[in-house]
């Protein structure tokens, strides 16, 4: 089953963190768990469609202390595996916030 994860956190300049993160990503990529990943601008654009009229509102809606965002599309056997991977992810990046949505097939 596939999950889309998004996360926000503080910017870091810690070299060791980058190396550890790189290793983590590489392991997940080669095992096929990580299907796609990338950074994300936190400036959000919100769309609302009401009675056929689409309203577009430009964010930011995230709090200012969170300065970097990222997403990952992963393929795992169970929700628990996705949770475990997310836990490992935050162990590396430190404080932050994340969301996870199951992709329906």
């Amino acid at each position, binding site marked *: 089953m596939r999950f889309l994860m998004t996360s926000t956190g503080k910017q870091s300049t810690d070299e060791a963190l980058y190396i550890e993160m790189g290793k983590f990503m590489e392991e997940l990529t080669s095992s096929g768990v990580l299907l*796609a990943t990338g950074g994300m601008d936190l400036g959000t654009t919100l769309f609302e469609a009401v009675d056929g009229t689409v309203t577009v509102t430009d964010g930011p809606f995230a709090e200012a202390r969170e300065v970097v965002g990222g997403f990952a599309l992963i*393929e795992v056997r169970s929700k628990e595996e996705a949770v475990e991977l997310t836990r490992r992810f935050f162990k590396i990046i430190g404080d932050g916030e994340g969301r996870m949505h199951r992709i329906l097939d």
Partner: protein
Amino acid sequence: MTAPDAHRAIDAVWKFESTKIIAGLTGVVRDVGLAEEFAQDALVAALEQWPRQGIPDNPGAWLMTTAKRRAIDHIRRNARLEDKQKEIARTLEQQGSDEHVDDDVLRLMFMSCHPVLPPESRTALTLRLLGGLTAGEIARAFLVSEQTVTQRIADAKRTLAEKRIPFELPPRPELADRLASVLEVVYLIFNEGYAATSGDDLMRPTLCLEALRLGRLLADLAPRQAEVHGLVALMELHASRSAARTGPSGEPVQLHEQNRGRWDQLLVRRGFAAMLRAREIGDPPGPYVLQAAIAVHHAQAKSAEDTDWPRIAALYGALVRQMPSPVVQLNRAIALGMAHGPQVGLDVVDQLVRDPALKNYHLLSGVRGDLLARLGRHDEATREFERAASLTHNAAERAFLRRRAAAGAPPRVEATLGQATREFLAREDLDPETVRSYGQTLRRLCLDLGPKTPLVDITAGDVLRVFAVAWGTAAPKTWNRHRAAVRSFRTWASVDDLSAELARKPESRTRRAPIALPQLETLCEQSDTALREQTLWWLLYESTVSAKTALSLDIEDLDLPRRHGQFTRGSESHRLSWQSGTAVLLPRLVEGRCRGPLFLADRRPAPSRMPRSADLCPDTGRGRLSYERAEYLFKRATKRLDPSGAGYTLHQLSRSGPRREDP
């Protein structure tokens, strides 16, 4: 966290970590049965402690430490302490985090797929040890009882111990056979999931996913084996079609009727990437690489009509020579039937009917029925479909075959462009080269005008429009070749003259004009031309070697002061030399570097697309500049110079050099 939640979380950790733990322990205690027991002890400890204390920071390390402690206790408790065991206990105590764990995992894989084990034990043991699946999960996947699986695993471990199968990578002479056995196990697991041999569902996705994981793991551990990448490519590409393979009520949808929009493009791309890795290794293609190449052709076809059947039939021909199995022959017959007409396919199938190995193989009847139906022999086709339906054990497939048997003769419909194209190309009086050439033309017409368009609705104007866009800027020779295809097609189909508006173009014998020296100078003087591009262009112009050769050069190959370098083509060594234009640029390009690729890409490659180390700069980590990128940059830069507006090619540039004109 409630207890069941905690157990599921622990199970997730276990599935990530168990292989490494079992492999690491087997590396020390040399008995896979014992190693698994200690690992299981650690799991039991986790199930007791984690729900109360929470999951530790590094759960993998926790499990490993606990398992090792159990192993040490066990050895110490053993009354007859032999020296060897003391040594093992010492090793376990001293061992830090194990860097060789990857090798141990690979050894474990070779062990669990060892040919001394019967095939069903190999798959069960592999899923258990390398997939972290429980006996219950394996039993559900293979639709057998849990007890059977437990028994198979226990027997397998006993056999490995009794036959003293060493925990090691196979020695060179055995490597090919042993690797084949590992690949076979992985593919068996995949196929059991992809084309479930029994049960109600057509597919069991769990098994496919497990096999894919095992394949990717193996590709990571044995990256120099082309067949490993071939198998991964094959599985990724087959898996990409999963969603499209079954209809709303679970019935199978055949490849040519699948909605290609539902193919999983992520997996297609992974498959292509794996195939490229296999090709880069450069070994002659083995059975998995050949099968993957066939899957690649299907994945590349935009529609069923677009499929390059002659090429696929040829690949099956190569596969038959390596794997002369009747099932491969049957697939070759299908491809031949599509490439050269149903009668050609049927001739091959009719020989297979005599093969006793296929006497209960439902697909043989299914394929024969299909070919007969296409030849209009509907009574015989119905009998074959009924026979196939009674032979299959899969409920979804049975229902499908029954429906085909009941369908009988299809209602005659007005011929569409797609149908006419298929029948035209299936004629037996055309040689393969002609079929291929005509196929290109007609597939383009199908693509642009729609394969479902009735043939009678197509006008000469429609054809001209397609030609103008597709081949308007191509060489006259190309245009005339496509024109000839349309003329042949319209004669055969006895429709209006579809080529009426296509004028024949005069063919000149000259090549595309060479690029003059002043043009190259102008190009390089433009302020946005990077040093790398300037150097490459001058080198191609002055040395006249091909762009591929130039891009393959390493800095070690060059002698800058003498203005020459060497490269190998096949097994021969060749020389190239250059003049002042290149000579002033080269030292600047290599400045500070003394090895690795001469022309580097702008960025470092992503971890998932890491090229071989020979294509990486050891100092900067950047990869070798690709031909595609170099060609694109040159075309972009020369757009303004080229009267046709398309831009020049690097091939043209290297043929423009001084020595060609003045030998």
